[in-house]
């Protein structure tokens, strides 16, 4: 053990004796390690953000929505491209919309898989006005399932009662942000108050029964101040149907029961709706799970990380060869020292260890510098992207052990060469 610390001390001595050379030697290692760490840090922050947004949106959710059918194009002999009939800007007719019946049948077909149906109907975006005070809201009618799908957390008051839902009463839930704007944060004053909601040239009177906690959607970057922020105002679904005089939905969300593979279920839902829309010329129904989106993103992140890892691996390989080269030079320069040490009774193993430790120290110092640069660059990059920087502890430990391994691997050959030197030759070396 004494020998080991002595070797480490020696390694630092020779490192400091040739600072410039040591730095140049480390450069490959520094570049390799810092790029790995920087990418891992940014990747980590992005992944965490995606996971966050997944939890706000709900990973078990399947979005079902109307989609215009792919336009079929026809090509004439002259090469002109015509869009086939029935395409172009097609307005959604009431008959195209997904009806309550379809949803009901869907629920009856897959009672095991569906936990809740979140259907919503947007009335429009507008303002709650109260004298000079205002709050931007988008008014939408929702089924109870929507609260589950949106992961809405009640701060004060209550959700709607079943009977209120059935009757379609003009009751509403507003966000805490809206309460801040209208009642200066006094939720008690908000509850039970009836407000005027202006949308376009109409206004609706809604009685507030609950306040929910607004959560910033992590996927959206908004520069709007809290004052102008537009938040959802929820009213019973039935009420919104009456306001808009329409019955169907352009989209809805299925909250799947736990343990259901939402990806597979999304396909089942699609084929379920295919039977209804086979005859529809313009529209079809698509269903996709958020989990699959997240999965796609992480797969993408994964391949980017792999590509960077390969580049960094090459940099580290080159760096390692640089270390080996310098170690060979250093050993030639110190031939007499090696001879002297052998004459003084150093066994071959001790000489070998001395130079391996030296190579490892070079690599670890390079690795540490690389980690510092990498973390700094990662934090700067993450800040530029507007995501919280999360340095990956795993990658730091990995790079440290990796640079140590490089030191051992590329230091072994020169060290062994030193160990095998003939002491007589080495002592005579000029």
């Amino acid at each position: 053990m004494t020998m080991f610390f002595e070797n480490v001390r020696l390694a630092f001595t020779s490192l400091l004796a040739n600072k410039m050379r040591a730095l140049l030697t480390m450069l490959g290692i520094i570049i390799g390690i810092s790029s790995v760490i920087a990418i891992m840090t940014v990747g980590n922050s992005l992944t965490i953000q995606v996971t966050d947004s997944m939890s706000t949106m709900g990973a078990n959710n399947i979005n079902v929505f109307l989609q215009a059918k792919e336009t079929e194009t026809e090509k004439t002999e002259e090469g002109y491209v015509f869009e086939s009939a029935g395409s172009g800007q097609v307005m959604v007719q009431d008959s195209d919309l997904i009806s309550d019946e379809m949803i009901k049948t869907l629920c009856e077909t897959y009672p095991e898989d569906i936990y809740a149906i979140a259907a919503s109907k947007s009335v429009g975006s507008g303002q709650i006005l109260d004298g000079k005070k205002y709050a931007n809201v988008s008014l939408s009618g929702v089924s109870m399932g929507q609260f589950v799908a949106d992961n809405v957390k009640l701060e004060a008051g209550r959700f709607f009662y079943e009977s209120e839902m059935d009757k379609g009463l003009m009751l509403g839930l507003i966000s805490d942000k809206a309460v801040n704007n209208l009642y200066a944060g006094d939720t008690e004053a908000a509850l039970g108050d009836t407000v005027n909601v202006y949308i376009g040239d109409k206004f609706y009177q809604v009685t507030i029964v609950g306040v929910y906690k607004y959560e910033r959607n992590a996927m959206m970057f908004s520069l709007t101040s809290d004052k102008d922020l537009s938040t959802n105002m929820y009213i019973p679904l039935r009420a919104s149907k009456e306001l808009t005089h329409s019955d169907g939905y352009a989209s809805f969300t299925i909250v799947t029961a736990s343990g259901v593979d939402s990806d597979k279920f999304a396909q089942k839902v699609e084929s379920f709706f295919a039977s209804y829309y086979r005859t529809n010329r313009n529209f079809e129904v698509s269903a996709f799970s958020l989990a699959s989106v997240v999965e796609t993103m992480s797969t993408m992140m994964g391949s980017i990380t792999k590509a960077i890892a390969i580049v960094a691996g090459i940099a580290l390989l080159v760096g390692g060869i640089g270390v080996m080269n310098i170690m060979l030079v250093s050993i030639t320069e110190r031939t007499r020292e090696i001879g002297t040490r052998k004459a003084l009774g150093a066994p071959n193993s001790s000489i070998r260890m001395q130079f391996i430790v030296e190579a490892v120290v070079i690599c670890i110092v390079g690795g540490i510098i690389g980690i510092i640069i990498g973390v700094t660059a990662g934090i700067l990059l993450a800040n530029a992207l507007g995501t919280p920087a999360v340095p990956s502890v795993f990658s730091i430990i990995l790079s440290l052990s990796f640079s140590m391994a490089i030191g051992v691997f590329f230091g072994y050959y020169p060290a062994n060469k030193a160990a095998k030197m003939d002491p007589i030759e080495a002592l005579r070396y000029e």
Partner: protein
Amino acid sequence: MEERKKIIDMKGIVKKFFIGTPNELAALGGVDITVYEGEFVAIVGASGSGKSTLMNIIGSLDRPTEGTYFLDGINVTESKDDELSKIRNRKVGFVFQTYNLIAKTNALKNVEMPMLYAGMGRSNRAARAAELLDIVGMGERMKHLPEELSGGQKQRVAIARAMANDPAIILADEPTGALDSQTGRLVMDIFHKLHKEQGKTIVLITHSPELAEECERIITLKDGLVVGERQGSGAPSLADSKEEVSAS
């Protein structure tokens, strides 16, 4: 004459290079040398006489092609590489013409080095190294780097290092060769002091007849053979030399 312990016991030592090739070369052609404990022996000879080869074998840096060699009772002829390192470490103290101190390592650490390889603990090492540096009159400059020392000072550190593991023999190869006569004198006086006061066995390899004359016994080598062995005049009066050492 009473029976004294043999430190070096060489019989029929032959060293050949390029064995089996047409230009096979015998550097040593059958050498018998015996050095007893506490002796101060000089080995002299012109260059090409086989001095260096003999020194390498005495110092167990090399093995003879033929013959037997016992160093302090250990059969060097049959030892493996790592055993030879151990023998060098415990039994031999080298003093080189070019000092061969480890660069960028202070005097104290240089003297500690053989003890480090012997596995001695840190504090013991430092204490012994300091003590040895005191003996050679370098106690004041323990923390100096070799670059900061003069030739004579470097050689004194090297002598302290040679004594580190209290070896059976101190093997000095032209120790004054790179020094001016005054500092050379100083270094020789240290050897005499170690011999007289501590009873060290010293083998001095030199081409200088004057230096050899100071020793107790002179072995002359020529063309790989011992051609003469006679008594030297012994050490000069120690009283003056002691003054010189402590004054420096």
